[in-house]
C-alpha cells in the first residue's frame, strides 16, 4: 500500500536489536525478522511492526524513546548500523525511511552508548545529564515581567541568524553517541554560543560557560578531540564552529573572571 510508489516492493529484514531488561542488568543483541516492510514506512514505524508482532506473540516489545516523529523533539535516539540516527545525513531516526534500506538487509540497532547516558531498558537511555548541564547555566536570568520592549536592543541579522542556528539543537544526544570520546561538547557549545552571540546573554557570559563546562565534566562526558563525528551526525547540522566558540569563551572566562573557585 505504498503511497508514493504503488510498485514499491515490500522488504524482509533481519534486525539485530539490543535487549536489556533494566538499568542494572546486562543486555545482548537479539535477532528478529520483520516481513513485508513498506519502503514508505519510517524507521520507527518498522519498529512498531516488530513490536506489534512481539506483543501478539506475548513477548515483551522493544522499548525505545520517540514522540513527535517529525524530527524536532529530540526523543528518538537509535544507533543504527553503527551510525547515530542511521545512515542518512541530517535526519533523525523518526524521519529515516525504509526506502534507504534494501530487501534482505540486516540492521543492527543499539542504544546511545555513553557513561553519562545509562540504559533504562532496551534502546531507551537516560539523557537527564543534558538537563543538568542546561540547569548549570544555559539560560538568561530574567524573571517573568521585567523585560524591556523586544525592539529595544537591535541585533544584527547575521548575529541573530547564527544564534538561531546554534539554538536549533534538539538535544537528542547523537553527538555524544557518535563521538569516539562520548563528548558532549557540541551540545554544550550550541547553547553557549547561542547566548554568547546574543547581547541578552552577555551579562552572565563568563559564569555560564564556567558552570556549564564544570557540569559537563562532572557528568562524565569525554573531552573533545576535534574528530568531527558529532557535527557530521548531527541531525540539525550544528556546526563545529560552536565548539571553537565554546573553547574561546571558556578560555576568556577563566582568564578574566573574578571567580577564584
Amino acid at each position, binding site marked *: 500500500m505504498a503511497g508514493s510508489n*504503488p510498485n514499491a516492493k515490500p522488504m524482509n529484514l533481519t534486525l539485530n536489536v539490543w535487549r536489556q531488561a533494566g538499568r542494572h542488568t546486562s543486555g545482548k543483541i537479539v535477532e528478529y525478522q520483520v516481513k513485508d516492510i513498506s519502503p514508505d514506512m519510517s524507521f520507527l514505524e518498522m519498529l512498531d511492526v516488530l513490536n506489534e508482532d512481539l506483543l501478539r506473540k506475548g513477548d515483551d516489545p522493544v*522499548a525505545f524513546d520517540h514522540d513527535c516523529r517529525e524530527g524536532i523533539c529530540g526523543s528518538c535516539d537509535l544507533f543504527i548500523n553503527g551510525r547515530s540516527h542511521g545512515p542518512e545525513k541530517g535526519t533523525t531516526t523518526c524521519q529515516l525511511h525504509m526506502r534507504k534500506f534494501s530487501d534482505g538487509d540486516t540492521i543492527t540497532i543499539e542504544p546511545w552508548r555513553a557513561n553519562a547516558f545509562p540504559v533504562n531498558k532496551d534502546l531507551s537511555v*537516560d539523557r537527564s545529564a543534558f538537563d543538568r548541564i542546561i540547569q548549570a547555566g544555559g539560560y538568561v536570568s530574567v524573571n517573568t*515581567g521585567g523585560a524591556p520592549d*523586544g525592539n529595544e536592543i537591535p541585533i544584527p541579522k547575521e548575529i541573530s541568524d547564527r544564534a538561531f542556528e546554534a539554538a536549533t539543537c534538539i538535544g537528542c544526544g547523537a553527538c555524544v553517541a557518535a563521538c569516539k570520546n562520548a563528548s558532549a561538547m557540541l551540545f554544550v557549545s550550541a547553547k553557549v554560543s547561542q547566548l554568547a552571540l546574543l547581547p541578552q546573554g552577555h551579562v552572565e557570559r563568563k559564569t555560564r560557560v564556567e558552570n556549564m563546562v564544570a557540569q559537563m565534566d562532572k557528568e562524565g562526558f569525554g573531552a573533545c578531540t576535534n574528530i568531527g563525528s558529532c557535527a557530521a551526525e548531527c541531525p540539525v547540522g550544528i556546526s563545529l564552529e560552536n565548539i571553537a566558540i565554546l573553547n574561546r569563551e571558556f578560555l576568556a572566562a577563566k582568564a578574566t573572571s573574578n571567580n577564584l573557585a
Partner: protein
Amino acid sequence: MQLDSKSPEGPLAEKWDKHKFNVKLVNPANKRKYDVIVVGTGLAGASAAASLAELGYNVKAFTYHDSPRRAHSIAAQGGINAAKNYQNDGDSVFRLFYDTIKGGDYRAREANVYRLAQVSVNIIDQCVAQGVPFAREYGGLLANRSFGGAQVSRTFYARGQTGQQLLLGAYSALSRQIAYGKVKMYNRSEMLDLVMIDGVARGIVTRNVITGEVENHAAHAVVLATGGYGNVFYLSTNAKQCNVTAAWRAHKKGAYFANPCFTQIHPTCIPVSGDYQSKLTLMSESLRNDGRVWVPKTVEMAQRLRKGEIKVADIKEDDRDYFLERKYPAFGNLVPRDVASRNAKLMCDEGRGVGSTGLAVYLDFAEIIQRTSAEAVSQKYGNLFAMYEKITGENPYELPMRIYPAVHYTMGGLWVDYNLQTTVPGLYATGECNFSDHGANRLGASALMQGLADGYFVIPYTIGDYLAQTPPKPVDANHPAFAEAKAGVQARTETLLNIKGTRTPDDFHKALGHIMWEYCGMARNAEGLRHAKAEIQKLRKEFWSDVRVVGTGEELNQTLEKAGRVADFLELGELMIDDALDRNESCGGHFREEYQTPEGEALRDDEHYAYVAAWEYQGDNQPEKLNKEELVFENVKLTQRSYK
C-alpha cells in the same frame, strides 16, 4: 452547578487591569509555604512552573518525557501572534482580539480573548529577553509575517521552528528555577489521577514510567498544562505520546470538559501512505500561497491514476479541476483551514482523490515554478520541499505534492473561568488543555500565544488569588484520599495487566481513530454520530475484555502506558460524539452536514448555540450532564463568514 465565568465587570479594555488589582495577594514571605503542582512542561506548563517559582512558590513539575524540553509545543512551526504593531499596519490589541473571536466563529469568551491579546505583547518582550532568536530584519529589529485569518503582519517567528525556540526559552527559565531548587522536576512521571480532599484539588498520583513506582504528590494547587487530545483520532499531527489522561482523570474527579467536539483539521498534511502509518506530518499552511490545489475532473481518470496506468503529466490542463479556485473565486486556494479541508474530503469522497489510497489531493507548484523559477520557489519553501521529499520519496519540484487534511489541534478542553480555574477548586488548566480562547476554530500562530500567555502572565496572578485564601499549612500527604487514589491507580494497572486478551492497545486505538475520523471528523451528521456512539461503546467493552498488555507494572512498560491512555480516549471519544450531537449547528471546526447554507457553507445558530457546552461527569457508563455557559458578546457583532 451554575457556571460562573468570573469575567470582571467593566469595559473590555479595563477588565484585566481591574482584575489584577482586585485579586488577593500572597505575602512574599508566605509564598514559600505554598506548594504548586504543574503537570506538563510545554509552553503553558514550563512558563507557569518557572514564573510561579520566580514568585517564590514551591513548584513540583511533572512530565512523562525524559526531559521537559520534549513537550509537543516544540513542533509548532509557523509563529506567534502579538499585537505589537511594529509594522505600522494598523494592528492593535482590539484587532487581535477581534480577529481571534471572529476566527473562532464566536464561540469564545470575550474577556479571556481580550486579555490574551493584551498580554501578547509582553510575551514577545519576555522571550526576546530570554534569548529566543526570533527572525530579524537587516536593521536588527524583529521581523513579522502575515498569517491566515488576519490582514496585518503580526506573527513573530524563528524560521519554521518557532515552537521549538519558544519552548527552549521557557525550558531555560524552568531549568534556572530547578537549579535554584524552587522547582522540583519529575521527569518520566505520568499523572494518573487527581487527589481531592474535601472537594478541593490537593495533589496528584503519578507513575514513574521507568521504575513503575506509583507516587503521591501533595500541593495547595494543581495546574494541568497537559495539552490537547487530538490523538483520540489515532492519526494526527500530535506527537505519539500526547494524550488526554491527565485531563480526563481530572474530569472524572469533577472538572467539566468544555466543547470536546471542537477539533481543528489542518488542510495541508502529508497523506497517509499505509496501514502502518503512525502519525501525520504537517506542511506549513504558507504553501497554499503559491500552490494550486486540484484533482482530476473525472472519477475514471482518478482511478487510472491511482492504479499507475497514467501519470500526472498525462492529465491535460483541461482535465484538472482546481476546485477551490472554481468554488471560491475570491479567496481561491487561500480559503480558511476548515473550508479547504472539507473540500478536499469532498473530492476524495467523490472518488477523485489521488495517490494509491485515493485519500489525497494535489498541491501543484508547476505554475509558480514556470512563472518564476525553481530557485525562487526553493528560496521560499526549500526546507518544506526537502521535508516532503524525505517523507514521501517524491520530488515536489517535479511532481505535485499530495496533501490531505489531518487533525491538528483541539479547541475543546477542561472548562475554566477567567482565572483559568476549572470547576474543581484549586485545579487550574492552561494552554491547549483548557478550552478558553479559540472558540470553535483556532487561528494560525495563536496556540503558542495562548500557552505562554496563560503560563507567564495569567496563572501567576490568578493562582495567587486562590492561594491567598488557603491557609499556608502543609497539605497532609497521609490523608486517606491519597492512599485511596494511589490504590485506584494500582488497581487499574493490575486490571490492564490481567486482561491478557488478544488485541494490542494500538489495535484498539486505530479502531477508535477510524470511527472518530469517519463520523466525528471534518463533517458530522446525527445519524453517523449515533452510529459512532454505539461503535465506541462496543469497542470499549471489547477493550476491557480483550486488550493485551504483557510484562509488569514495575518496569518501563510502554504497552501499559499506551493501554491506559487508549482506555481514556475510548471514554473521551464518546463524549465528543455527545457534544457533536448536541450542537445542532455548524461552526468552526464543527461541521454538521445538516446545518449548511445552500452553497455548502457552515451555518451557525447564534440564537440557540452561542454557549459553551461544559460536560459534567456522572459516573461510569452514565451519560454526562450538559451545563451551559452562555456567551455574551458586548463588543463584537456576530456575522456569518463568507469566502466566495
